[in-house]
């Protein structure tokens, strides 16, 4: 429990837990919010990025190639598409998906590639905002009590590139690691009234200092404190408490990574526009498919539950789910006796679900070994332009980088028009 008794009256609190325990479908409190959100015509689009850190192998997932792939393929609900047999639940949901098989990007070391995959730009002296930070700015509401961008991960730190860069700390991701505890330290160490008094005193004592400096670190600090305080006081922060979720629902998402995906769903339901969630430990499998063997089943379980749940709640049309890592894997013909799987950025796959896209498509074609693009290369900039367009973000908009330099959200990229929702 994360200290909500401070925020709610005792009765509300007990009622809430009881409802959660009794309800087989939805915990009582989240339902009205979600229903309202689903009905509202003004609901913004949302996005969940399911991140496979280290690089998901296209050969062992969505671009199966006989003679190369280490696993067998199975039919899916999308005629003509076969995917890895370790993904049976997703196979039944692929009619909601469009697969992009010809991602072709510029980086092949993890850090630089993850930066590129998050920002759409190669790493340089200026720190660029991630897609999540852009979504936070473009889709988020300033008065929304939760962060408009959350990053759920079991990695030691947030994936490289998942920062707000020159958009400032107001759009920085809320990093979440320990899911069982929800957000740590959400409860004040003193009574809420006393906390408010302290906070008010802080503002009064610090005012002069801040006004005299007009400096970014000072403004950043005060903005971050404000965000933290709003978070402490918000009703929506209950979304972070997985113990309010019915047992059955928790089970359907599986392991600890799946619980992160469940948390992502809860955040989307209360209106967070952008959530990134890491599934699996490291997918950085250099020889063979051991890690894929380990992490594909939990991915299958969690992602299929997410798609089904959002669909049930009428939120799938407004929620784009993106499955991706920083690159794919390179492999050779199995008859060569090599199970090598190296970092591979020349041709790799990403998958989109929901978000109102024209589903049921396969974009691009790779060669026999899924190593090179034969048709329709998709650059990271094309990919970003596509995602932005789906989310209703004008990717040609210019933001201002340090030094007053105007920088377009996506430079030199063209959306994959055949995927875009009918407008």
């Amino acid at each position, binding site marked *: 429990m994360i200290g909500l008794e401070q925020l709610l009256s005792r009765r509300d609190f007990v009622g809430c837990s009881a409802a959660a325990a009794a309800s087989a479908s939805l915990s009582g409190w989240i339902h009205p919010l979600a229903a309202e959100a689903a009905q509202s015509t003004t609901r913004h689009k949302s996005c969940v990025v399911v991140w496979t850190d280290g690089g998901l192998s296209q050969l062992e997932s969505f671009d199966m190639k006989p003679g190369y792939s280490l696993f067998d393929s199975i039919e899916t609900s999308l005629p003509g598409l076969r995917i890895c047999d370790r993904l049976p639940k997703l196979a039944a949901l692929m009619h909601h998906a469009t697969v992009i098989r010809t991602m072709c990007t510029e980086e092949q070391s993890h850090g630089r590639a993850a930066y590129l995959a998050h920002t759409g730009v190669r790493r340089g002296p200026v720190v660029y905002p991630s897609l999540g930070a852009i979504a936070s700015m473009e889709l988020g509401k300033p008065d929304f009590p939760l962060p408009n961008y959350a990053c759920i991960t079991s990695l030691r*730190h947030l994936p490289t590139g998942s920062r707000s860069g020159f958009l400032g700390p107001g759009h920085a991701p809320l990093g979440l690691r320990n899911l069982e505890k929800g957000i740590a*330290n959400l409860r004040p160490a*003193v009574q809420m009234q006393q906390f408010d008094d302290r906070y008010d005193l802080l503002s009064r004592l610090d005012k002069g200092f801040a006004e005299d400096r007009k400096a970014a670190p000072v403004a950043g*600090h005060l903005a971050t404190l404000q*965000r933290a305080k709003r978070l402490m006081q918000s009703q929506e922060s209950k979304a972070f408490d997985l113990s309010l979720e019915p047992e059955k629902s928790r089970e359907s998402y599986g392991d600890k990574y799946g619980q992160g995906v469940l948390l992502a769903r809860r955040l989307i339901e209360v209106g967070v526009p952008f959530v990134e969630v890491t599934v699996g430990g490291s997918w950085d499998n250099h020889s063979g498919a051991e890690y894929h063997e380990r992490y594909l089943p939990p991915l299958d379980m969690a992602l299929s539950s997410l798609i089904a749940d959002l669909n049930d709640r009428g939120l799938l049309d407004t929620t784009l789910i993106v499955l991706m890592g920083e690159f794919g894997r390179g492999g050779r013909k199995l008859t060569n006796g090599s199970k090598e799987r190296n970092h591979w950025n020349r041709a790799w796959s990403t998958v989109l679900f929901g978000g109102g896209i024209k589903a049921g498509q396969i974009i691009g074609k790779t060669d026999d070994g899924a190593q090179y693009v034969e048709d329709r290369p998709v650059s990271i900039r094309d990919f970003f332009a596509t995602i932005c367009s789906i989310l209703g973000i004008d990717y040609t908009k210019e933001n201002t980088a340090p030094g007053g330099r105007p920088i377009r959200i996506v430079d030199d990229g063209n959306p994959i028009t055949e995927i875009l929702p009918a407008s």
Partner: protein
Amino acid sequence: MRFAPGFSVRTFATLSLSIAALADGQSGAQELSRLIDQEIQARLDAAGLPASSVADDAEFLRRVYLDLLGVMPPADRVAAFLESSDPQKRTELIDDLLNDPKYGRHMANIWGPMLILEKTFVRPPKPLFFDWLAKQFNQNRPWDELVFELLTATGESAQQNPAIGFLASELRTIPPDLATNLITTRFLGVNIECAQCHEHPFASWTKDDYWGVANFFTRVKRTKTAGVKSRYQGLMHTAKLNRVSTRAPEVAPKFLGGVAPTLDDGVDPRFVFAEWATDAKNPFFARAKVNRMWAQFFGRGLVNPVDDMVESRKPTHPRLLERLTEEFVRSGFDVHFLVRAICNSRTYQRTSKVTKGNEDDREFYSRMPVKMLTPEQLWNCYEALGLELTEIRNPNLHADLTLENFRTLLLNGDEEPSALEYKHGATHALFFMNHVHLASRQKVLVRQLATSARTPAEMIDRLYLTVLSRYPTTQQRETLTEFLQSKSESSSEDTYGDILWALLHSSEFTVNH
């Protein structure tokens, strides 16, 4: 560049020079301080920018403590410093701090993580290396000598020679991967990483430049000393190409932008490179160090980014950079000398407050830039207040809180702190504001301060001196008197706890101004 074939150990001609410079260090440094101020003023005048006034004693004291020792001053030191009417007290303080062992530790905290990256797979024993670095900085080893030793370190084990930590940790795969990048960016201010695969987009570096440097470091290998654990193993020269370097392109070792020296068999090529790199005439070496030291105190370099001082990026103050570099070389690469010159300058001692007309100044130094505290500084400040972070278990991390993972927690995936950008997120703020352990330690601190305060006014002074290193303003005293009255029904311990909490979370405490 010419090199006598077959040399193995360099004799340090600069050592005696540097001692000479030290003897005369004080006046030389003051001379250089004046030069800094002249050059800064000239650019301000040209831009028509008004400069903020000199910082008061309290602002200066806190700043110079944080910058030199990585921690704020103790309350009694603040009181004494504010009391003193000695006109030389600032200069004397700078000298005192340079002789405080915390100085070397602070410098090691800055340089250590730059030299041994967190992501390094083969971890050398970091503490040994950090301790060694701290010692070198405290002894004020001339910079050329220190870097020479890092580049050429040889030893049977990390215990026997901790300096091997730098290369031992970065030589894990093909040396160029990490070692080359670190050597050029950290010591030469040159980023040739991109040239590993293609031509540098903004400079004329080529793949040959990249592999030319890299291949000085391919004839070194880890030792296999009996009885030494693998991560403590040493580093030694090997005549043959080492195993991990066989994938490096066959480019003859070549100085950056220079010639390929003749290398005799049996000579460790690292010595040849180090000789070139740390030479007084090397066009990159001293300049890069001066630029980094400037950035350490002002949050930004005279050329930015400090890792990539390519020609196309013009310095904001070209003549100043040139003169500082000359003087630094002339001093025998004396780091204390450079620090003294910077810290005694009026430019460094300006207030961080804006004055009418300089609100938008980012690069003219019309006022002191406000810097973020580094994770190490924040850690030290908490420790100094008795709010020990080490006692915290699992603060949203997978491990107990050590300085190292506190750093990871706060940097949130970045390799280095960025001085002028606020990076903490709401979860960090929640941690500091609400963590139960910190809350209970704050109570202890309040009780402790209360023992030496007789009146509420004294208690407020103690709180301010301890947390913010100054006395409260008249207005703040009034605000607090009112606050105390409004809380007359609460226990005084609670109320002073509120005040302590408010000061600890103020932006004033959180930044170095």
